[in-house]
């Protein structure tokens, strides 16, 4: 159950932690685009090396990232089955009589797995090395130019920061309710379908009621302290760009450019 918290901020002091959140968000977006450029295995190799280097700098344990990937293994298997059944291109690898497996099916699946893995790595780096508050502050700053065309930058940032703030709370709440129901004989791991359904209901209903309660409490607390979304506000914390932030963004752009070049050349 604890593997849900894979994206949780880990307070350390590394060069990655010290970067400006805006630069990190931008670099992440650029890197995500880069991942979706079909630059072949060389391209993915380069991205992987870069990401692993950043992970190393940020002192995140690889174990944590694989934990985050674990729940997706099931989905991957499902994908593999679909690909094997539908993709009939490339070399014939295996002929089981009733089923022929082609190389392209395997390669396509591998592509998706690698992309997903890289994406998880990048987003995990961002969320684990950036305080949730800084993250939302960064988003707000990046959205500010769009205010002119009516994008409610502050509201979006506030919604995101509240959502982020409540993820650990809801996980905790989930664990607590699960434990309460386990004490009442609910078996979340085994059991027949009917028991499974009843187990899930016994978790979902209290979780919803608690979440609504919490939301209500929070709304009241904010209103009681005079929160008005449209009101002009000042900031306690100001973000400051430094040279290293510029280097990061330029680096990300270079990576993207390299991928595009590779995609065109190959």
């Amino acid at each position, binding site marked *: 159950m*604890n593997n849900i918290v894979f994206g949780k901020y*880990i*307070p*350390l002091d590394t060069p990655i932690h010290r970067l400006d959140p805006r630069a990190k968000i931008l670099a992440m977006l650029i890197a995500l685009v880069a991942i979706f450029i079909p630059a072949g295995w060389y391209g993915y190799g380069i991205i992987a090396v870069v990401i692993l280097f950043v992970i190393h700098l940020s002192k995140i*344990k690889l*174990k*944590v990232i694989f934990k985050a990937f674990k729940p997706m293994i099931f989905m991957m298997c499902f994908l593999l089955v679909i690909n094997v059944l539908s993709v009939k291109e490339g070399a014939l690898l295996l002929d089981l009589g009733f089923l022929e497996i082609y190389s392209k099916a395997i390669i396509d699946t591998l592509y998706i797995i690698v992309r997903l893995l890289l994406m998880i790595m990048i987003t995990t780096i961002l969320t684990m090395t950036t305080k949730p508050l800084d993250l939302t502050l960064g988003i707000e700053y990046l959205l500010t130019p769009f205010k002119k065309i009516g994008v409610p930058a502050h509201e979006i940032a506030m919604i995101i920061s509240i959502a982020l703030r409540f993820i650990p709370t809801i996980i905790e*709440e989930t664990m*607590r*309710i699960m*434990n*309460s*129901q*386990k*004490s*009442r*004989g*609910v*078996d979340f791991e085994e059991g027949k379908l009917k028991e499974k359904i009843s187990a899930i*209901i*016994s978790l979902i*209903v*209290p979780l919803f*009621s*608690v979440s609504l309660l919490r939301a209500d409490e929070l709304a009241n607390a904010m209103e009681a302290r005079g929160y008005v979304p449209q009101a002009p506000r000042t900031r306690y914390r100001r973000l400051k760009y430094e040279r290293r932030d510029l280097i990061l963004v330029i680096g990300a752009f270079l990576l993207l450019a390299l991928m595009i070049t590779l995609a065109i050349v190959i």
Partner: protein
Amino acid sequence: MVTFKELSYVYAPDMPYKTTALDRVDLDITEGKITAIIGKTGSGKSTLVQHLNALLLPTSGTLEIEGYTIKAGEKTSKLKELRRKVGLVFQFSEYQLFEETIIKDVAFGPKNFGVSEEEALERAKKALELVGLDPSYYQRSPLDISGGQKRRAAIAGILAIEPEIIVLDEPTAGLDPKGAKEMIGLFAMLNKKMHKTIIIVTHDNEIVYDFADDVTLLDGGKVVCKMKAHDFFAERELLESHDIYRPRIVYLKELLKDKGIMIPDDIHTLADLAAFWRDHE
């Protein structure tokens, strides 16, 4: 006997912010008694009691309970049977309610343990009566009653399972004083009449003094001491060093003693003291 042997528990062991919530706990809890577990906020009380029905498994060390031996790193089978024998009422237990009606919610536990529908409803009625929710509540939704009533319903939900050992994590927090007293009176009754082992986590020293046989004091995940409740509150230095306030009766007896009035050691309630006083006059 429930026995903790060198039991440690660490939250988030892989993370830089890991917490050792229990640190090599050695502890015996006698069956058939009321044991109070006390200690500051964050001292590990909730963590300790969640080991009793194997919701948490030790990081190291062992726990022996009801014929089960739960060892760190080893899988124990039939945990469900253990959970039938050891009923745990959570801190904030009011959030576990979910059925459409209170009576169905209370019957949920016994049904999970294989009790028939009718029998489960019978037990639910009995348990609801014990916790003081009369039949007018049976058909109400557990989601829109008051916090204190939810707490009662949640406690009934565990009592209906009819466990041998009843573990309660701060069952009286949020109840009004009269309700709290009734609730504790109920646990004392279950202990005296039905010989249930009661393990109760509480911050209320009056309750500890009036109802508990034994006290275990936790601090920073370690067991500081385990004593008879009445002896514990006589240890002035220990109490002072852990910032534990004395129950009113103990305080009063000490005041009287300081004034040179000797009170026999076996007087433990205000009523007894008053009676003694009358005879004395």
